[in-house]
């Protein structure tokens, strides 16, 4: 009898896959954006099943909350969602892409089986653990954390420079 976690996993997995497909299949970018939001939320739920609570919350805040809003903003501001405006010219590209991704999956398949059994660990993803790990000077995470702040600064400046009419 499948355990509760298996059931939740499969539900979430199917929702994620379907919404992911919707992202690609939808013609209207707003609809695909929304299905992407759904995907992000399901992935956040999956994180929780993987005991990564902090990551789940951050995922929702950053991905669903900020990035997707940015997407919606751009779509709406530029009124890009003229449906059907963009026709597929050559027929070759999609077919090749499909074939390639098929091969890709085949190639990845051996990687999915993992040696050894999962290792139990307590409060793997709690905020406290992550906090202690992130800010511990002896661990190799503090420096990248600081550098990411610079990265974000650069991104902000970049975005402004790109989007501003008159700099």
């Amino acid at each position: 009898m499948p355990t509760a976690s298996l059931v939740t996993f499969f539900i979430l997995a199917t929702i994620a896959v379907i919404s992911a497909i919707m992202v690609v299949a939808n013609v209207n970018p707003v609809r695909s954006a929304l299905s992407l939001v759904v995907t992000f939320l399901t992935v956040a739920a999956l994180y929780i099943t993987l005991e990564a609570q902090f990551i789940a919350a951050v995922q929702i805040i950053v991905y669903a909350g900020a990035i997707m809003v940015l997407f919606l903003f751009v779509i709406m501001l530029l009124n890009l969602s003229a449906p059907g405006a963009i026709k597929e010219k050559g027929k070759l590209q999609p077919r090749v892409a499909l074939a390639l991704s098929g091969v890709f999956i085949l190639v990845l398949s051996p990687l999915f089986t993992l040696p050894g059994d999962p290792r139990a660990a307590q409060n793997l993803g709690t905020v406290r653990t992550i906090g202690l790990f992130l800010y511990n000077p002896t661990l190799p995470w503090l420096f990248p954390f600081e550098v990411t702040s610079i990265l974000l600064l650069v991104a902000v400046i970049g975005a402004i420079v790109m989007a501003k009419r008159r700099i």
Partner: protein
Amino acid sequence: MPSYAWLIVWLPLLGFVHNASAGYLYKSLATRKKAVSYVAPGVVLLAFAATLYVLTKEVLTSPDHRAIVSLIPGLSPETPWMSVGGFKASFGLLLDPLSMLMAMIVTGIGGLIHIYATGYMAEDREQPRFFTYFNLFIFMMLLLVLGSNFLLMFVGWEGVGSCSYLLISFWYTDSNNAKAGNKAFIVNRVGDLGFALGMMAIWSTFGTLSFFADHGAGVMQLAAKHVDVLGHPLAPIMITGICVCLFIGAMGKSAQIPLWVWLPDAMAGPTPVSALIHAATMVTAGVVMVTRCSWLFVQSPQALQLVGWIGIATAFVGATIGLVQNDIKRVLAFSTVSQLGYMFLACGVGNFTAGMFHVLTHACFKALLFLGSGAVIHSMLGEQDMRKMGGLRKLIPRTWAVMFVGTYAIAGFPGGAGFFSKDEILGAASGSPWGNGLLLYILGLLTAFMTAFYMNRLMHKTFYTDPRYTNGELHAHHHSNFTPEEEAELDGHGAAVATHHGHGEADHADHGIDTATDHGHGHAGGSVHESPPSMMFPLYVLAILSVVTGIVLGPTHIFEKFLEPSVAKMSLGPLSAGTPMFPETIGWIISAVVAIAGLAFASVIYTKVRVTGEALSENYKTKNAIFRFLMEKWYFDKVYNYVFITLGGKFADKVLWRYVDVKLVDGTFNSLAELVGSVSNSLRKLQTGYVRNYALAIMFGVVALLVGLLAQWNVLSGH
């Protein structure tokens, strides 16, 4: 004790330098010519004196008459003037009987010819240039004969070739002379190639090029010991190869069968040139070289046979062509070719000393004949065609006398120099070590007979038959190459310069140098007259010499003994020395009979046709196949022209240029360029500009990478 040998060589060089810079040294042309006319012969005669001194003082006193001294006084003979890796070439001079003999010939007879030339070239404006080349030639010839190693000999060899080119085309304004000069030079070069190959072969086997070196390391010493530089026994094939190559060089230089075509055309040069270079010295260089390398030739029977047969063939062919020539100098030229054939025949049958003896005697009487003919031409105001001469016996009796002595010497009339040396060769030929001596002997006699015939024909045509020219008809063939001012200046001085007497007013319309014909004489018309004493004196000396050498050196065999140390014995090689079929006296009698028969036959024919001086009727000449064959010089020229010029030209054009150069060489590079171009063009299409194509390409990459990794991973982890 310091040797003076270097003086022999340096004096002509000094003369050359002086004559060359005569233009700077002396302002006016007259003084310049006067100075040159004194310096040039003087230098050579001094060299002759130095040769005599060195011969007596140094060579005969040194052990087995051999000494190696340095060309440059201060240096030792071994200091290399060129050393590349293991190869060293030194400045040594080899003083031994052979080289001294040749040095004496070159400087002695050369000196006489220089004196003669001063007279002959008196009116020529370019006289200083002439004597510059003349002295340079002497210097080069001396280097050739005195050089202690093959390379120095080769330097002389090439120098002599170039001087002969310069002197043949002395009157370069006439394009025929220039072409003749070219022909001579090119044919010589072909020979020189053979010589060079021979040299390289020698170096590769004997490890050195010097003939004789201390503690037995010289080429000749090793050859004598039948061993090469590493001590291995000499391969017979190698020896034969070397000898053949060297002989090819000799053939080129001494005008033997395949490469003799340049000698008749070389008569385009002034007569002293023909006398010195194409009779006495240069052409004999081949014989000297063969004799020098007798140690090698002796060891390869095949080479000796080749030399012998080529020699006899050339002798016979030269003589036959000589019969039909009308130009006085060409007759002598072909006679030279034929006599050279005799010399090589002698070498071929192993009797090198006989060959060298004939070189000596031939140098004397051939120089005498050439100079005599020069005098005849001089007095005939440049006329060379015997058909226009005749009856000169009374007009120029002294020249006739001298010519008479020369003719009887060359014909082999008993008592003349030719008689003894030629007879020795014929004797040696009869006992040729490699068989068919009888055939050689008979051919030799036949050639001797023909020699006697055409020499006498020449004498009759020029001296005894009725004169075929009228006084008025005589006209100079040469335009003077004086510029108008110099002409005036010369006339002003009157006879100051010339040892000439009586020359008429130049009545030619154009005086420009470019229209000058082949000869430099400035006068026209005027009667036939004797040559000036400066020309006659050498003739007298040579006449005496061409008789004395024969009698003194011939029967007494002093010459063999003198030359003996520098010539290898037949016993060194596989063949044993051949003995003549019959004793010497019988040989003498036979050859005397043949010579007298030849002479008589000619005089009988030509006294009958005293008036026309033509033995055969005109149409007979044109129709008779043999006559035309001979006139065409056995079609050698035609064959060469056809084979090398036309065929060679076509081959070069069609195959070498159109195919090899254009298609192969250029083709490869051009196609390479096109290849690069086309490849890059096709690659260019990859940049479609569409982002999605690039994304697809990346995807391909990723998949390929993964497949690669997985394949490896599986292999590694053995799944």
